Structure formats: structure tokens, C-alpha cells
């Protein structure tokens, strides 16, 4: 049962990802990304990470992608223009992609000790997850939060027009 679900949603995830690249309408690409995010959430759920799955749907599919579609709708972005691509890209691009894939594949095959994930009925409860997050991993967790805060402040500073009183620049 788990395997069937895994195959279905992994296939959906990959189809969404490929579709994202080949669609010409920006809004269709954004919607494909939502499909990828939600299928990933189901895959997390199959691995027993229920909180992660819910967070994936709420944060990525529900909030971040809404902003994506919001911007696409606001700018009313039209169809992408597509060039045939230069010869240099074709001659360098395909070997480069093949090389990167080869490196990743060999490192995955070589490196067996990076832990394993099994698809079974085991579920990591939210309490267990937060216990680890707020004891063992407290420092990285808090540092990440500060990092996000800095990013927010930076974007506000960049987006802000004018001086401290809100006057327009002359």
C-alpha cells in the first residue's frame, strides 16, 4: 500500500517538476510547483514525518506559492518568449548536466553511511520532533530564525522608498 502511494506521488512530483520547466505560461509553472510541493508533503507523510508534511503544505503550498501566484497575477505576466538557444549552450550545457548528475549519483552510491529512510508505519510525533529541535538543535534553530529575520529586514530596507519620515526621494 505504502509502495503504491509512493510510486503515485513520486511520479506526480516528477511530472509536476518537468511540467514546470516546459510550460510557457508563468501561472501554469507556478501551479506545477504547487503540485510538486504537495506531492513532496505526501512523500514526507509516507516516511512518517507528519508535522513536516503539514508544515510543507501550510508554508510552501499555502503561503509562499500564494505570493508567487499573487505576483504573477499582479504583473499579469504573459507567455514567455523562447529562443532556440545558442550553439554554445547546447555544446556546453548537456555535458555539464551529465557530469553533475554523474557526480551526484556516484557520491550517493559511494556514501552509504548517510542514514536511511524506510517507508513503514513508524511515525515521528510532533512532540518528539520539537524535543529534538529545542534541546539538541536549539542553537542552529535560533540562528536560522535570526537569519530569516535579517532577510526580512533587508528586504524591507530595500523595498522602502524615501527617508525615515517616508518622504519621497528628490
Amino acid at each position, binding site marked *: 500500500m505504502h509502495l503504491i502511494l509512493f510510486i503515485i506521488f513520486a511520479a506526480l512530483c516528477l511530472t509536476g517538476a518537468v511540467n514546470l520547466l516546459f510550460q510557457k505560461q508563468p*501561472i501554469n509553472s507556478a*501551479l506545477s510547483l*504547487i503540485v510538486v510541493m*504537495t506531492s513532496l508533503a505526501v512523500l514526507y507523510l509516507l516516511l512518517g514525518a*507528519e*508535522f513536516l508534511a*503539514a*508544515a510543507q*503544505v*501550510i508554508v510552501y*503550498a*499555502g*503561503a509562499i506559492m*500564494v*505570493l508567487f*501566484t*499573487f505576483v*504573477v*497575477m*499582479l504583473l*499579469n505576466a504573459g507567455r514567455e518568449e523562447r529562443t532556440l538557444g545558442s550553439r554554445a549552450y547546447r555544446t556546453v550545457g548537456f555535458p555539464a548536466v551529465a557530469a553533475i548528475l554523474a557526480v551526484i549519483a556516484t557520491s550517493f552510491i559511494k556514501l552509504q553511511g548517510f542514514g536511511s529512510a524506510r517507508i513503514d508505519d513508524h*511515525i515521528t*510525533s*510532533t*512532540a518528539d520532533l520539537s524535543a529534538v529541535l529545542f534541546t539538541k538543535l536549539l542553537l542552529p534553530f535560533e540562528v536560522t530564525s535570526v537569519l530569516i529575520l535579517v532577510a526580512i529586514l533587508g528586504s524591507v530596507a530595500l523595498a522602502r522608498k524615501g527617508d525615515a519620515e517616508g518622504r519621497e526621494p528628490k
Partner: protein
Amino acid sequence: MTILQFFLWSVLKVIVVTVVLLLAVAYTVLLERKLVGRIQNRWGPNRVGPFGLLQPLVDGAKSFLKEDIIPTAVYRPLYLLAPIIALSCALISIGVVPFGDPGITGPGNFHFFQIADVNIGLLVILGITSIGVYGIALAGWSSNNKYSLLGSLRSSAQLVSYELALGLSLVGVVLRSGSLNLDTIVATQSTHGALSWNLFGGFQFIAFFIYLMAAFAETNRAPFDLPEAESELTAGYHTEYSSMKFAMFFMAEYANMITVGCVATLLFLGGWTSPFGNLLPTPDNIVIRSLLPMFWFVFKVFGFLCLYVWVRGTLPRFRYDQLMNYGWRWLMPLAILNIVGTSLWLAYR
């Protein structure tokens, strides 16, 4: 219980709950029209059937039979997909809501009063609600109409802003019960009737107030119904929709209202537990014992729906900047303060 039996029982539950929910949606529309009518000193629908009780069925038939117009300039795939997303998301989230006492089970520990008992039930509801935005957003964009687009832009911005306050307002309740499972959250409020509800005994009335405001905004209801403000945007995101597609948006809105009522009941009003606690004796008869919790649940949700209609009939619409200010500058800080307060109290106790 074999897999086949489990499957058949589950399908049966899904069918029964969906039919009841759709009927409830239809009659919530009637309830709203009747109550708003009385608030405005008129009768409301009273011609079809006794007291207008058959009005929802006639409305439904009318929606089915009307001509379905698809304007030529729309972006067809998304135009057709949008009402389906809106309605299905509105209907799915009822699947994790427990309606009755989970202590009464069938063979093989089978839950009668809940379609799926999920560990993270609360998060599932929040997740599905956040996906539901796409129905409205895509409807407005694909209609290729300026009013629709403005409506859906407003709605996306409003939903993203108020979802934050909504989520934060529920954290206090989750802290108190220590679980995201809806059954457990109800069980922690069941000891002394209304006194141990999160709203009263749990001192979560600030959270309840924030939840109420945010929920009104989330379901696009007055006084936060800016995405469909008739005086400014014709009908907002569903301007270009007709016939059954329009009805699907309409049904989604009312189904969302019912879900929000269910969540408020579960989280703040003790779910299916009796408000009198142990003052009333527990009935011996198994039928009464399983129906009584459902009665209390439905009663509380009904009260919540009446509150919804009352607010709609009383308050004028917000202005857009007021809406954003209110959400970000008042509700969100208040929700954070509530979390800090609740945590301190729980740590001190």
C-alpha cells in the same frame, strides 16, 4: 476487521457526511436569508413550502438548469478548475472533524463519528484551508476581467495576512492541551462541562476573539467581504461565473463557514461534550448516549452560524487599508501576546 470491511465502512461514512454537509450548506443559506430578513425587519423567503423550507432545493434546481455561459476571453483550463478547487477544499476539511464521542466504537475499534482520526488533525484543516485560496485567486485571474482580478488580488492578500493571526490564535489552545489531535483537544476540555472549556476555564477568550475575527476574514464574510464587495467590484472574483460554477463558489463559502464553526466548537467550546458536565446523568441507552454528543456539537455549530449571520446583518464593510492595518498591527501582536501569556501561565503552574 478486514481491509474490505474497513474500506466499505469508510466509503459509507464519507457519503453520509458529504450528504449531510451539503444539506447543511443549503439550509445555512436559508438560515442566513431568514435571519438577515428579520434583522432588516422583513420576512425573508416564505413562499416555497412551509416557512420557505423548500427554498434551498428550488435554488439548487435553478442553478442546475440555468444556461452555463463561458465568456470567450477566459483562460479555459484554469477557469474550469477554479470552482472545483474551491469546493473540494471546502468539503475535504470536514473529514478530520470528530462529531461525537470517540469512546463509542464499532467492531475493530472503528470510529463512527469521524471519517479520519489524524494525529495532526488541526494542521490538516489549516493546510487544506490554505490551499483553498487558489480557487478564488485562479478564478479571478482566469476570468480576464478587471473586477475579478481586483477581487482575487484582495482575497489573496487578505487570506495570507489573516491566516497568520488565525494560526497564532490557535497556538494557545494547542499549548494547553499539548496535542494537535482534535479528539485529544476535546478530551482535555471535558471534565467540568462549560467551566473547563478553553473559552472560559482555559482563559483563551482573547484567542477566541482573534480566531473569530480571522475566521470571518478567511471565509470572506462581512465585515471582511472585500473580495466580493458589490459596490466596488460588481461581484468580485466570481463576476464571470454563472449557473452551477457560481453555485460551487457559493457552496464553498458556506461549507467553509460550517468548517470554521466546527473548528471553533472543537477548540474553544468543548466539541461534542455537554456544557453541563457531570451535572446531568449519563444516559444508559446506547442510542441516546451516541446521539446526545452529536446534538451538542450541532447545537454549538448552529450557534456559531447564527453569530456569523448576526455580524453580517449588523456591521458595515471595512475599508481595504483598515483591513490590512487591523490584521497586521492589532490581531497579530495580540495573538503573540496571548501565546506568551499562556506559555508563562503554563510554565508557572
